[in-house]
């Protein structure tokens, strides 16, 4: 439920930032489907976790702290919010904004960038989704064996 509220708020924030495509995705995926899959996973697992008597792993704590520190340090180089001089607004974005309607011929430039300029990236995303689906099928099964009717037992009398 908290996940759903978070996704809904995030989607509203994206709308405020004029990123309507991302907001649509966030509302559909985050607030819709992932909650259902999370609930499905909760139904499948047991309600108590297994008790295991392993000692606390100090090395793992150190590795996690170092990794987290490095990631936070990495955010120091991020440009300020709404900075017009940010690299994302300098490189190819002006060309997309100015020329994409003339070059591609469709008004939604998000679609132009996703499907045409960055078509190979989108192909990669589709293949990632496909292989994720295949991996889940391999791990969990297709969910079809449950409703297969049991073969009638023959009495040998």
């Amino acid at each position, binding site marked *: 439920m908290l996940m759903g509220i978070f996704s809904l708020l995030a989607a509203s924030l994206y709308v405020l930032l004029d990123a*309507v*495509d991302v*907001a*649509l*995705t966030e509302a*559909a*995926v985050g607030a*819709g*489907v992932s909650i*259902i*899959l999370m609930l*499905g*996973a909760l*139904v*499948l*697992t*047991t309600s108590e976790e297994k008790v295991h008597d392993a000692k606390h792993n100090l090395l793992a704590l150190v590795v996690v702290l170092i990794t987290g520190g490095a990631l936070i340090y990495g955010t120091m180089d991020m440009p300020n919010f709404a900075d017009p001089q940010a690299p994302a607004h300098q490189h190819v974005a002006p060309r997309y904004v100015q020329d994409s309607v003339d*070059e*591609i*011929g*469709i*008004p*939604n430039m*998000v*679609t*132009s960038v*996703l*499907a*045409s300029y960055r*078509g*190979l990236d*989108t*192909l990669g995303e*589709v*293949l990632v*989704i*496909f292989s*994720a*689906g295949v991996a*889940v*099928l391999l791990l*969990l*099964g*297709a*969910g*079809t*064996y*449950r*409703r297969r009717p049991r073969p009638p037992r023959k009495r040998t009398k």
Partner: protein
Amino acid sequence: MSPHIVLRVGAKVLIPVILLFALYIQFHGEYSPGGGFQAGIIFAAALVLYTLIFGLDAVQRAVPPVAVHLLSAVGALLYIGVGVWAMFAGGNFLEYKVLAADPHLGETMGIILIELGVGITVGAVVISLFYSFAGRTREQEN
């Protein structure tokens, strides 16, 4: 199933609208926000709603799991196929503007086709994920 009449009637009114909205998001993505990815998710969400009301058996009679598994591959193959078609038409991989005499028409055709591929794959994968989760029974607690 139990006769939850409000839920059943409400779902029967809602589900066609959701499916139609998914198709709108799919094929109007060039002019308004949206595209294949969102359309696939919304299409799958309609089937999830159907499952919640009418049960997994009913939805698997309407949309068999085998078809879902096939479609998830068909979408990706459609995407790659458009890319290869562009290569045969004399361009680079996924260079749509060689698909038709008019570059704008070619780009639009290519984009619509690959968005269709994205939508088919995403919708089918999400439905098959849902089948996988919903079709299992709880593990034995021991």
